[in-house]
């Protein structure tokens, strides 16, 4: 395993960097998009609730690989040229956002309805009440499941390997097929994934304790 790092350190490092970059971008946007659709789902407007529902059901129930390939193959052909990294990151963002939406919605619904009512009666608009009162409490409830989503997101970023996204998994595949040293290569790749996910996992646990 050490020899893999010695001989292919540069490629692995590039892959690790791309995996981290893709994960950070996807995490940021899926959190925003997911939270937005979670709010859609609890809005008084039936139309927006239906839109939210459709979005979530579509992206939650299609395999990530299909969404990634769609952006890698179909979108550049008919709409907008993009490279594999971009296509994969967009696919990952949309896919993850549907799970985050479900998680955040559950969190919003776990907040006592008196909180929203008190805020509205106090003169706040729905969005002000959501932003200042309900969401901060909802996020406290959903930190543990959200942590799982983040870890899944990092692991799912390996979908980039299928769309030439130059991520860790992609580099691993390249090294393995060039050296035939599959055993050591995939062990090295696994270790590098752990380097991202383990600290993340511990950080989420720390946050959970701190906010409890």
């Amino acid at each position, binding site marked *: 395993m050490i020899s893999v790092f010695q001989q292919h350190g540069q490629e692995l490092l590039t892959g690790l960097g791309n995996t981290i970059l893709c994960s950070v971008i996807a995490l940021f946007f899926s959190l925003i998009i997911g939270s937005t659709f979670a709010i859609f789902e609890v809005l008084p407007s039936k139309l927006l609730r239906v839109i939210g529902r459709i979005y979530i059901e579509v992206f939650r129930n299609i395999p990530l690989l299909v969404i990634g390939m769609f952006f890698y193959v179909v979108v550049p052909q008919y709409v907008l040229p993009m490279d594999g990294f971009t296509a994969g990151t967009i696919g990952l963002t949309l896919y993850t956002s549907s799970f985050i939406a479900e998680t955040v919605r559950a969190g919003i619904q776990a907040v006592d309805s*008196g909180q929203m009512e008190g805020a509205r*009666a*106090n*003169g*706040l608009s729905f969005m002000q009440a959501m932003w200042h*009162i309900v969401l901060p*409490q909802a996020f406290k409830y959903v930190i543990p499941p959200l942590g799982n989503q983040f870890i899944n997101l990092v692991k799912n970023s390996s979908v980039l390997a299928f769309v030439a996204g130059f991520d860790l998994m992609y580099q691993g595949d390249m090294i393995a097929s060039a050296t035939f040293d599959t055993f050591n290569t995939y062990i090295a790749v696994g270790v590098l994934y752990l380097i991202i996910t383990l600290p993340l996992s511990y950080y989420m646990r720390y946050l959970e304790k701190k906010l409890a």
Partner: protein
Amino acid sequence: MPIIEFKKVEKYYGKFHALKNINLQVEKGEVVVVIGPSGSGKSTLIRTINGLEEIEEGQLLVNGYDLADKKTDLNQIRKDVGMVFQHFNLYDNKTVLENIMLAPKLVLKRDEKENKETALKLLESVGVSDKTESYPKQLSGGQKQRVAIARSLAMKPKALLFDEPTSALDPEMIDDVLNVMKEIAKEGMTMVVVTHEMGFAREVADRVVFMDKGEILEDAHADEFFEAPKEERAKQFLSKIIKH
């Protein structure tokens, strides 16, 4: 002109007829106490006044706004009509001081310094000035309700609604809250109060409204009502409540 006026208001929950032909006027500075058995529609009635419940028919004018009109901006009404709830509904993620300062800051754009001074003054007047940095979960029920009252007052409302403000409190806390409410009434606030506290009603109310099964059965001066209720059901209700 009355500040609150119900004209032939009807309210349904599905098939359940929650409010039946409600006609009621509340003048500026009046204290109106709404009593009646549980399920009689008291809470529904008071919650229509700030639009927490919609009405299906009739007209409801509050501070010049028509609540039956779908285009009415409810936030405009809620700016001027505060509400105190049975379960306090304080913001659990905010300190006592933040609870009071949030709405004036966001809704009225009151400047920070004035906002804080107002909030501290109000907290002092309701007797919880030593808890400014506490969170709601660190307060007793009585303290929570007094903070909730201060939060409503911070908006400088024209009227205040109280929905069973002492029903969730331990007996020894009830007087503290009622005393604060008496003070507010003395200062001339228009108040609509749903309560089972007959002592408070007798002492503070200008008028008593008795409801049963979604209807207003009696609307009388407090003295008249307690001396000689006209309605049979009101008599029965009073005799049950005053027994213990």
